[in-house]
């Protein structure tokens, strides 16, 4: 069982869903407030979605200087697992823990709906229970989701296989190379725009997001998460 710290900023609004999703996957998940500098021996830290500090200045720009980010940065630099979802992804980019940045959606509109994404990297702590190339339906809910990076960074992402999720069938926000999620070079820090915690059980319309959280526990024997069961890292639909 992993200890999972769900970091809460003023303006986070996916923290409770994220905590529930991690617990449903069998993790020992708990909240850590943004003023804390102690992740309480976390194996993984998750920065949830929301609108930390009202998205003032730039999404994630102010949260990036929260006391808790010092602990998250130290955890990441030591090889600890970190996942940023939506606003969490924006914060990790602002903090320099992930390359690139997230800008206003190309058509300006705030988008809140399910989209299709493809898993392009399964060698991360949060995607190892997926099959490479598998297509998922996951909800997005963002106004600033257009991923950009300079040409050199983009080339490195491609060469190192650091694109974790890509939009397929349509690119909703104008992201470069249809990028919906990336990881760092060490592959322990992952950022994704879609919300797996909003689609981790059939009652939510699907369970394609559950394995993001089950991946953390994939080496454990048997875990339940809603309608989905993970056995020895493989998933069975029940």
């Amino acid at each position, binding site marked *: 069982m992993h200890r999972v710290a769900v970091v809460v900023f003023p303006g986070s609004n996916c923290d409770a869903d994220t905590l529930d999703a991690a617990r449903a996957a069998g993790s020992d998940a708990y909240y850590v407030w943004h003023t804390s500098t102690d992740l309480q021996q976390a194996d993984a830290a998750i920065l949830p979605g929301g609108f930390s500090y009202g998205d003032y200045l730039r999404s994630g720009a102010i949260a990036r*200087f929260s006391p808790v980010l010092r602990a998250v940065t130290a955890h990441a630099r030591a090889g600890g697992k970190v996942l940023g979802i939506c606003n969490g992804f924006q914060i990790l*980019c602002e903090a320099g823990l992930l390359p690139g*940045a997230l*800008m206003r*959606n*190309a058509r*300006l509109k705030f988008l809140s709906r399910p989209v299709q994404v493809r898993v392009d990297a399964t060698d991360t702590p949060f995607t190892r229970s997926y099959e490479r190339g598998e297509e998922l339906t996951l909800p997005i809910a963002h106004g600033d989701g*257009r991923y950009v990076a*300079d040409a050199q960074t983009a080339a490195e992402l491609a060469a190192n296989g650091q694109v974790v999720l890509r939009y397929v069938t349509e690119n909703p926000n104008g992201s470069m190379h249809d990028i919906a999620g990336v990881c760092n070079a060490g592959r322990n820090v992952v950022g994704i725009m879609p919300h797996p915690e909003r689609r981790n059980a059939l009652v939510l319309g699907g369970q394609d997001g559950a394995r993001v959280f089950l991946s953390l526990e994939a080496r454990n024997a048997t875990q339940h998460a809603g309608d989905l069961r993970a056995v020895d890292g493989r998933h069975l639909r029940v």
Partner: protein
Amino acid sequence: MSDFTVEIRVMPRASLLDPQGQAVQHALQALGFDEVGSVRAGKHLVLQVQAASRDEAAAKARTMCDRLLANPVIEDYECTVSQ
């Protein structure tokens, strides 16, 4: 120490899509301002800064831009200092 007014202009990189600027451009053209070739939208920040000199105020402002006020991945900035 003196008080300086630092004005900072933060603009999205010229090479990047600026949908906000485009939307404003389209709105201007819809109003009949056909002479508008392009619009780019950025941020304008005005700071009151205490410093020993104009140069020191400018140097402090640039540090603030590098650390917080602009994101070097996507934005460029310019500072002007007045007393």
